[in-house]
């Protein structure tokens, strides 16, 4: 063990390797409900070459390697289930290149959402990226690689859809270029080459370590507005979302069901954000959205809520800080959620299931759905708060999550960034040939089985 520690020190420097109990304690867990699993080492590389050397060492000694970005996935994906080393990637946080004309940015894998947002605001004020509602220290790479979504997902789809290319250190130590950058100095798209990005997205770090990535940027328009469409009938929500998204002017459509204040209980609120270059354009977009749901308004089964400017400003905040604050609902610093990727027509059933689980188990629950694409699908979330100082309360939240995962799969949805136990639930529903293909690919890429073992496995 000491020999490996010394080898790691040689690669990254003594100040960026730890085997101390303090780091092993913190890196064993994330803010969610999953049981801690201690790493043997925590390592912080500062370059692709350092990552490559670490992987070669791990490969030679058959040591598990778990890459970590912001550590905010909540579902325990960066816990080293079989020990080994956690690679905290956040020292690699350089913003390397912005292409204003083709609207893209190339960043290192440890670059945070907040850092890129601030950088673009200052240096390229006409551009922005799709920021998730994760805290701003969450990394771009982590979110792309788990198929995240965010404030431009109604316009651009999943964050993985916004990926132009990657540099990846393979589990055997080779450095691979994915996308146009493999054959061109430009990082403009994954087409027209065979799309190898799929070998690394959604795999929870089991197939390689992304070290650089280029993502699409979008116009940051000088004017922005938000409308909130309110309905009391969950059965109507798929149709409403279908109409609003179909206009193709929204940057973000986020449905949410609030438990507080009390008068909001039972309402579905659909938050539609859009931007414009001029006031006329903003008015036009507002009118187009309003007309798209005219039949609901005329039938008096829904309508846009008047919003005072201060409240509007809060809804325009990116990311939304209120999401993290939900962790204090039990005065206990914890929440975790099932993010179910599913078609929008499942909204009523998904909503009822969330209510049913939360009421039955007595767990504080917040639900909502972020629309991806023009209503092509949604990420329906069930967030359960818990008190981390009370094991029984943590257990209740775990039970709620497990039951919700099962219900989501039963409905036809798929839990997103699923916990290791939920991955097994997914595999149980998966076409066996698909899982066999996953295993074959993984065997080819990672013959020594060092990459985040314990994930996407049946036992």
């Amino acid at each position, binding site marked *: 063990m000491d020999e490996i520690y010394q080898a790691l020190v040689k690669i990254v420097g003594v100040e960026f390797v730890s085997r101390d109990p303090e780091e092993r304690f*913190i890196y064993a867990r994330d803010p969610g409900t999953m049981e801690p699993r201690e790493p043997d080492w925590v390592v912080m590389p500062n370059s692709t070459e350092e990552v490559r050397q670490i992987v070669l060492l791990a490969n030679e000694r058959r040591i598990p390697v778990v890459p970590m970005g912001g550590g905010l996935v909540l579902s325990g994906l960066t816990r080293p289930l079989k020990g080994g080393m956690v690679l905290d990637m956040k020292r690699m946080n350089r913003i390397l290149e912005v292409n204003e004309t083709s609207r893209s940015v190339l960043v290192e894998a440890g670059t945070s959402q907040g850092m890129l947002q601030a950088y673009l605001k200052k240096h390229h004020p006409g551009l922005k990226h799709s920021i998730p509602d994760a805290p701003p220290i969450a990394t771009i790479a982590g979110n792309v690689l788990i198929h995240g979504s965010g404030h431009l997902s109604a316009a651009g789809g999943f964050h993985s859809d916004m990926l132009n290319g990657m540099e990846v250190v393979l589990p055997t130590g080779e450095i691979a270029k994915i996308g146009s950058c493999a054959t061109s100095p430009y990082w403009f798209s994954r087409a027209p080459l065979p799309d190898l990005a799929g070998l690394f997205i959604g795999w929870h770090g089991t197939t390689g370590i992304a070290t650089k990535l280029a993502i699409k940027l979008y116009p940051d328009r000088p004017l922005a507005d938000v409308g909130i469409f309110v309905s009391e009938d969950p059965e109507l929500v798929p149709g409403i979302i279908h109409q609003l998204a179909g206009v193709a002017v929204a940057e973000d459509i986020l449905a949410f069901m609030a438990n507080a204040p009390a008068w909001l209980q039972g309402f579905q609120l659909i938050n539609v954000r859009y931007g414009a270059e001029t006031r006329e354009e903003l008015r036009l977009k507002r009118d187009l959205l309003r007309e798209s749901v005219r039949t609901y308004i005329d039938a008096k089964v829904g309508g846009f809520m008047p919003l005072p400017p201060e409240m509007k400003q809060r809804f325009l905040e990116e990311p939304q800080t209120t999401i993290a604050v939900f962790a204090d609902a039990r005065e206990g610093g914890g929440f975790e959620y099932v993010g179910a990727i599913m078609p929008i027509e499942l909204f009523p059933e998904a909503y009822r299931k969330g209510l049913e689980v939360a009421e039955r188990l007595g767990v504080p629950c917040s639900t909502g759905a972020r629309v991806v694409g023009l209503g092509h699908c949604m990420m329906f979330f069930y967030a359960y708060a818990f008190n981390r100082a009370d094991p029984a309360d943590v257990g209740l939240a775990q039970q709620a999550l497990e039951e919700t995962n099962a219900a989501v799969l039963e409905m036809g949805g798929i839990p997103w960034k699923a916990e290791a136990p939920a991955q097994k639930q997914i595999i149980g529903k998966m076409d066996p040939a698909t899982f066999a293909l996953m295993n074959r690919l993984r065997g080819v890429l990672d013959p020594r089985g060092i990459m985040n073992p314990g994930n996407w496995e049946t036992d």
Partner: protein
Amino acid sequence: MEHAEILHRCFRCGYCKLPGSFQDLNCPPYLKFRFETYAPGGRMWLLRAWLDGEIQTSQRLSEILFSCTACGNCVEHCVFPAFKSELLDAFTAGREALVDQGVVPDAVGRYLRAIASHGNPYQLPEADRAGWAEGLGVERYSGQEYLLHVGCPGSYDERGQRMARAVAGLLLKWGVDFGILGEEEGCDGNEVRVLGETALFEKLARENIEKLEAAGVEKILTLSPHGFHAIKNEYPKFGGRFETRHYPQLLAGLMAKAELRRRNGRLRVAFHDPCYLGRHGGDYLTPRAVLGALPGIELIEMDRAMADALCCGGGGGNFFTDVLGGGADSASRVRVREAAGTGAEVLAVACPKCAGMFDDAVKAEGLEDGLRVMDIAELVLEHCA
């Protein structure tokens, strides 16, 4: 341990690591060491684990806790209103528990022993405390309107002494009625308090209060915002109530009457908010008002300003103990690079610790030819007719 009930309520969302703009890391120990353990959330969870017996007392734990500069960035940006105001108090309570167990970094131990034995961290004679004022003609306090408290760096540190001379010189020039305690001045104890040596702090505070009251002091001007914080916000807990101002807060009211001369050419000045005047004291505008009144000065802002300011790294006793250490990612070096990046020729400060930290950082970054570190009073003096 006090405030133990909030430790588990931290979600470790990480807003505390950043300024409001999110542009870069703004927590000095996390910026330097990068392990999650050194971030405020990491400290919260480690303290909880330590109290629960999940981790043991260790030198590493002690270094993690004592590397905090108490700058207040975490308090400012934490998104949990129910307990954010207690974060620094919880860290201080954690350090207090380690002090009680005798497990502190060596440098912290040396610092606290020096204060206890010599009354100052430099282990110099108390009789030398007034050395900084030699030749200035500053009177001992004898009922003047203000008492000028210069603190330990102002008394003994070469950079702090220059700053103390500038402030006193300016006050004399403008006819402010003030005096000093000189050899009788005591350490205000702010860093002792932050480092968790509560009993020693209480002793220092009570002795100072007794001395100040015996001398009939009602109004105090401080050289350091650290001393300002201790006397204004902590001494009342021990019955010491004085009208306390940090020196720019007095200067601001005198600028209108001051005879100032225009310097040749423009001088680009960036102001660095000291944590104990800014985030802790809520005063961001007064120093800017003073600088803004100086003819020929172009006041420019760094991206991280006011509530978003990056600490110099000298708080929490680090000015003396250097638990945080140097290197390219040390807060002081990052900060002077940020200042230089604005095109500023002068990095203006209002704290002797900031002045010392930045002087060293400018040298380490090789910026001596383009960036000078100047205290506000030094800048005002340069403009006096």
